[in-house]
């Protein structure tokens, strides 16, 4: 329990200018809205063939779910297939970008420029986004906005910036969330520097802390630093006090510096001015520069495994699945030489795209939401429900394991960063970031089948087609994934 007065909560600051006035849904209603929006784990519907109609309908009660399951147990496979498409489930369209072998999905319909009247958040989103972008994100968190951290919100943020500008012109106090975050960070930094100064004066901390935070040392503090250094040199032989012991001690008289109160009085707008402002806000024009970016793994999962994505070329022709698969197998090569390599070389079991895809598919099929892990120095991040519901608990690194050592020697692909013999230094490095952010590192070992064994079993051509790949994986004759999870254990701290 921190002593009273040490961490006083600062008074609430100015609120950000989000969407429209009065649509702040918070608390229980917000989480209900979230659960409703992200109800589907995948962009496929379960067909409910009750009453003889094949209309795909979202079951809304447990009785309907039960009725949907029961015929599936007794009737034949054709009617109980979960992937029956009907007119409501048109294929989602995306365009292949050959440079990165990703699929681009339009977020805002091309001709929509004006912001429109500020309405409730969900209605505004449905009116201004394409169906494909909405479904891909809402049902399974597929894709990433090219100019956003997760969901494509660039146009909404730009419109909000323009709104704030208009409001400021009329003398209203308005802030974008980004400005507020930057201001809070600055205040926190100043508070930390002041606290470090007070701690140095109290003799509890080295002045190094001030410089590391970006502050400057005064003459007094430099004298303290010199004195401390001398003392340490004299005490070198003894067991000097650990710096860590003094960290966290209560420093008498230290207060938390909150944000300054704004003394300006805000003038209220007349109804005519309000109406003018609303009209101007509705006429803000922003062209969408962003698109929804589907990574190569998501592309193959959606187009090949689920069959909900129609991948087209820049000339608006649909690409066949086998052609898409061969292009993806060559994704590690630069565009000009991709077609030069024959499929026999590319369709080897240790193809780097295949290895990562198999791990992606493995966790998706188990119900995890799988996103890129580059920000945490891993290959993938696993979310239980999705990025909007909480932080990822696991970071996955793909580790290839060869069944036959000769395949490793004859491999035409560049050396995998996690392949070969690894020592404890490598483990430590891999786990360093995960320890800081309290995630568990999962080493997903992919066993690469031996080329000789596959040829003996008549599966030499299995990897040349996506159907062969799926059949081979189902039969258990191809790759398999084994996980080893890692968390750093420090005996001194983790007793009991």
């Amino acid at each position, binding site marked *: 329990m921190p002593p009273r007065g040490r961490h006083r909560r600062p008074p609430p600051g100015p609120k950000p200018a989000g969407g429209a006035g009065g649509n702040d849904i918070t608390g229980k209603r917000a989480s209900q809205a979230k659960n409703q929006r992200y109800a589907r784990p995948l962009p496929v519907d379960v067909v409910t063939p009750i009453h003889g109609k094949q209309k795909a309908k979202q079951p809304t009660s447990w009785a309907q779910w039960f009725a949907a399951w029961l015929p599936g147990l007794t009737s034949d496979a054709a009617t109980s297939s979960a992937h029956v498409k009907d007119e409501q489930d048109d294929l989602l369209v995306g365009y292949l970008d050959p440079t990165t072998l990703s699929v681009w999905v339009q977020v805002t319909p*091309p001709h929509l420029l004006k912001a429109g009247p500020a309405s409730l958040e969900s209605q505004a989103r449905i009116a201004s986004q394409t169906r494909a972008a909405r479904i891909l994100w809402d049902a399974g968190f597929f894709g*990433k906005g090219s*100019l956003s951290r997760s969901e494509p919100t660039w146009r909404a943020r730009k419109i909000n910036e323009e709104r704030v500008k208009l409001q400021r012109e009329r003398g209203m106090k308005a802030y974008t969330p980004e400005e507020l975050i930057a201001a809070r960070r600055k205040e926190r930094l100043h508070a930390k520097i002041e606290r470090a100064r007070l701690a140095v004066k109290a003799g509890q901390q080295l002045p190094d802390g001030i410089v*590391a935070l*970006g502050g400057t040392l005064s003459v007094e503090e430099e004298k303290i630093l010199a004195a401390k250094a001398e003392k340490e040199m004299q005490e070198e032989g003894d067991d000097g006090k650990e710096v860590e012991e003094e960290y966290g001690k209560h420093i008498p008289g230290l207060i938390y510096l909150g944000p300054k109160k704004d003394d300006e009085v805000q003038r209220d707008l007349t109804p005519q001015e309000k109406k003018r402002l609303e009209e101007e806000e509705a006429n803000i024009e922003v062209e969408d520069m962003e698109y929804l970016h589907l*990574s190569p793994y998501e592309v193959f999962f959606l187009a090949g495994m689920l069959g909900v994505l129609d991948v087209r070329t820049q000339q608006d022709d649909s690409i066949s699945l086998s052609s898409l698969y061969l292009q993806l197998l060559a994704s590690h090569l630069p565009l000009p030489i991709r077609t030069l390599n024959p499929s026999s070389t590319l369709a080897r079991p240790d193809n780097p795209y295949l290895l990562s895809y198999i791990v992606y598919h493995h966790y998706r099929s188990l119900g995890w939401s799988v996103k890129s892990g*580059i920000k945490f120095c891993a290959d993938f991040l696993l979310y239980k429900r999705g990025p909007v519901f909480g932080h990822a608990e696991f970071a996955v690194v793909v580790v290839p394991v060869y069944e036959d050592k000769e395949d490793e020697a004859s491999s035409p692909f560049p050396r995998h960063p996690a392949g070969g013999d690894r020592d404890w230094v490598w483990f430590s490095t891999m786990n360093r970031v995960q320890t800081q952010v309290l995630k568990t590192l999962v080493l997903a070992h992919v066993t690469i089948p031996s080329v000789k064994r596959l040829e003996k079993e008549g599966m030499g051509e299995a990897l040349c087609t996506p159907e062969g790949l799926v059949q081979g994986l189902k039969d258990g004759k191809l790759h398999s994934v084994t996980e080893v999870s890692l968390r750093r254990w420090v005996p001194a701290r983790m007793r009991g």
Partner: protein
Amino acid sequence: MTSIADEAPKPIGIESHRDYTPLAPLLSRYPRQAGPLFHAYHHLVHSAAWTDVAPVDIRGDDESDPAPVNSGSGWGALIGMRPQGTQPELLLPCHVTDNLSVAYFQAVFSSLETQAKSRDGLQTGHILLAILSPDSTVVYYKLAKGLVKPVN
């Protein structure tokens, strides 16, 4: 109710995007680096609010290419000014799967000196490395020449 969202989709890609025109010569010269170059430029200009971002070819005079064959690296870079910055910096885009050698970075730093002669105020003490992930995330790392004590 037919909503606007039900219109037929139109093709989108790097070549039909607004950001392609200033980058076109560099993208065709260094095809391995095309993806990282486009995405770094796209992100800096529209999201990170960098100003005066210009593509630049930093290949040195000698024809030797120390970057290994399987690496996606090239000699395309971007020079621009960050929002609260005072001097322009060099940004080098690459793939997350690249193998970049020390010789490559040494060559980059030496060509940085040459660039600084024609560009006023270009920072020569460090470069920024923009690493592209398959899901279009770009992470930035600051690479300085030699040991530098970290200050916030």
